[in-house]
Structures are given as C-alpha cells and as structure tokens.
C-alpha cells in the first residue's frame, strides 16, 4: 500500500501526499497523488494509473471518505495520470474531472460521460473546493500540449504535474527534497527529454516566479520546499529542453 503524508494543514484545509508503494513492480513508473481537502470535500490531483488504483484508494480511504471526493484534477492526459478515472467514478458517478479542453474528447476513452468533464481553457481557470479558491495555471507543452498545474494561494502550494519530476533511486525515497544539488541530478534527463518547448518553459518560469510558493509538488519524485522552490525554477529556466538527436 502507498503511504500518506500531510504536507499542509490549516483547520479543514489540508494537503495530503499519497506516495511510494514498496509493493509496486518496477515496470510501473512511481507516481505521487495529492488530495486537497476543504470543509469536508476533496479534490484528487492526478489520481494515477488504473494499475495503482488499489494502492491509492486504500491509502486515501484510510485518510478520507472517498465518497466525499467531488472532483479529480488531471494535469494532462497521460495514462499514469488519469487511466484510473473509470474506477474512481464507480464511487461517485457525479464526480467532475477537470482537464485541459484539448483532452476533453480523449480522456473519455478512460471512462466518464459528457457530464464528467470540465474543460479548462488554455489560460487556466479558478476551481472552487467548498469555497476554497484554487487556480489552474497554464503549463502547456510541459510536457503535454494541453497541460495545467494547480495553485493553492492560501496554502502556497503549486501542484506541478511532471514539472519538477525526478526518477529517484531506491535509496532516495524521501517525500521532500533533502539536498537540492544531488536531487536534481535525478530530474535532469527527465526534463531534457520530456519537456517539449524552451519558450513554454521560459513562460512557466516567469509565471511561477510571481507566485508565492512554499511547496512545489511534482507527480514523480520529491516535493520541493522553501528555498528549493526558487532553486528549482532557476535551474529549470537554464536547462535546455526539447532536443533529441537520433
């Protein structure tokens, strides 16, 4: 089973990271899921692939009543992000799935009906979780052509999808980044290959620099906190991405 770790708490407003699963076979990429709670409602960010649904569901339900999940936020269309959609909908068929408009007609191949999807425009949009204002932030081409991150300005947390992702070795499984310079080595190849556009990356770094971020939470690897957030943005800004020589 995966483990849960509370990374932010203020009254009913809470962020829980659902991470690591010692039983997960190596051929599946490791993913982080995040649950945002507010006033008894929950929003699940990048719920993960169908294969890891049992582990995510078990960990989540130990922490939170899954019937109170009102929505799923999918940063993009990848199978490791959202192929579990049909399984989650079994628990609450009214659940909404927030996704870039670009993928609105693609994701139903994983499940859901026309009523399930809330198509987010390219410029992003506000999402309210029982009155808590959350903001979908554009991150297109990082790496997906229709890609959005989610910012919680009250918690000062940015959920950053595949941006900030690191493929960590077995001996570096901490939830938070401990030593930036050694951590980032496990992120470099991933960003060079998966991130598609230097121009889009520049815009994202610019946008992220203007947000107050205490924690940057990627879908793979470890959470950046404190000064490591800006360190990451600076590092990413300087990295040359989207180049492949074959």
């Amino acid at each position, binding site marked *: 089973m995966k483990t849960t770790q509370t990374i932010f708490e203020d009254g009913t407003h809470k962020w829980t990271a659902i991470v690591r699963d010692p039983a997960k076979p190596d051929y599946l990429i490791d993913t982080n899921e995040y649950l945002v709670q507010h006033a008894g409602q929950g929003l699940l960010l990048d719920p993960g692939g169908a294969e890891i649904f049992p582990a995510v569901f078990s960990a989540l339900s130990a922490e939170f009543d899954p019937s109170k999940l009102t929505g799923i936020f999918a940063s993009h269309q990848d199978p490791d992000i959202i192929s579990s959609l049909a399984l989650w909908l*079994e628990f609450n068929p009214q659940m909404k799935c927030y996704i870039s408009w670009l993928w609105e007609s693609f994701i139903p191949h994983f499940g859901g009906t026309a009523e399930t999807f809330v198509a987010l425009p390219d410029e992003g949009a506000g999402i309210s979780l029982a009155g808590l204002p959350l903001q979908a932030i554009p991150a297109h081409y990082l790496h997906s052509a229709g890609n959005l991150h989610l910012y919680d300005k009250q918690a000062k947390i940015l959920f950053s999808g595949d941006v900030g992702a690191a493929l960590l070795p077995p001996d570096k499984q901490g939830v938070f980044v401990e030593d930036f310079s050694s951590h980032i080595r496990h992120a470099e190849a991933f960003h060079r290959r998966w991130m598609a556009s230097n121009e889009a990356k520049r815009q994202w770094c610019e946008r992220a620099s203007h947000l107050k971020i205490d924690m940057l939470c990627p879908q793979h690897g470890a959470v950046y906190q404190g000064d490591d957030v800006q360190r990451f943005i600076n590092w990413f800004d300087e990295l040359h991405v989207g180049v492949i020589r074959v």
Partner: protein
Amino acid sequence: MTAELTTSQWHGSGNGTSGAALDLLRIVRINEEIKRVVAVAFKINIMALNAIFLAKRAGNAALGFGVLSNELRVFSKDLRESMISLTRLIHDLVAEVSVVLQESRQDALFRRTLAQCSGNPMLDSVLERRNAQHDSRAQRISGLRRSLRLAVDDAARLVELGGVLAKSAKIEAAYGAGFASSLGQVSGEFDGVVEEIRSSLEILRRSKFFGGSA
C-alpha cells in the same frame, strides 16, 4: 500484505485466458466459419446460374435439371440470409463479451483493492452493484448463445434441403441425353460444395461455445 502480491495479480485478471477471452476466441472462430459458408453460398449462386444456361441449351431433356438449378439459386439466397442473421447475433455477442473482458480487468483491480482495505462499505456496495450488472449481462449472453445455436440448427436444416436438391440434380443429369456428362459434372460440383457447407455447419454445432468439443 501487498508485498505478497504476485506479478499475475498485478496484471489484472490473473490469467490471460479467462472465460470471456475464450468465448471471444470461440466467437471469432464461429465467425470465420460463417464467412466460409457465405463464400461457398456465393459460389453456389454462380454455379446455379451457369447450370440454368446449360439446362436451357440442353432443352427438353434437362427441364427437371433446370428447375432444380433454380431451386439451388433460391437455396443459396436463403443460406446467405440465414448467415446474415447469424452475423447479427455474433455482432451482439462480441459487443457483450468485450464489455465482460473490459470489466474483468476492473474487477481484478477492485479485488486487489478489497484485499488491501476490506470492510470498506463503499467498496462493498460498488462490488455489489457491479455483480448485479454482471449477472444481467451473463443472462443476456446466454440468451444470445441460445439464439445463435438455434440459428445454426436452422441453417443446418436448410443445408439438408440443399443436399437433397444436389442429389436430385445428379439423378436428373442422367436424363440429359447428349448433355448428360456435362450436367453430371455440374451436379457433382453442387454435391461437393453443399458437402463443404455441411461440414462447416457441423464444426459450428460442435463449437465449445455451445458446450461442444470443437
């Protein structure tokens, strides 16, 4: 607990050849056999058309042969129509069995979830609802299976009639005077293709999909 999971459990159904997968495979084989019958039925149609012209040339001596050739054309048309209704049933079966296949992967994932957090009332009610859906789908599939079996039996009866027509054509050919040998050859061919269809239908009737051995 989760560390004890085997790779096959992680893979979904736990075995690649579940009942639904086998059913789908058998349905595919049945469909291939139906396609073969349709192709032969087309062949009979063309052969019968040629036989009608031959009988016309033979004149009075081949009047009976001409009538039988006409009947064989009608038989070919009836057979093709019967295969169309079989194909429709196959289509409905494929649709239902495919859903079972898809659902079985999700069922396996839910079973794994249950193994990790049993006693979760929401999970129990989801599984209950899914089981009820599975039951009604299983009933629909067995209804379709029965209809398909009946349709195959109907087609087999039709082929018996075709066999009688081909045999009668053989007898009629003997009265074909100067055309007797060419009429005999044609009627022999009729007999051969009807035999081909008969063996295809026999394969269909013996399919494991209907509890048979093939």
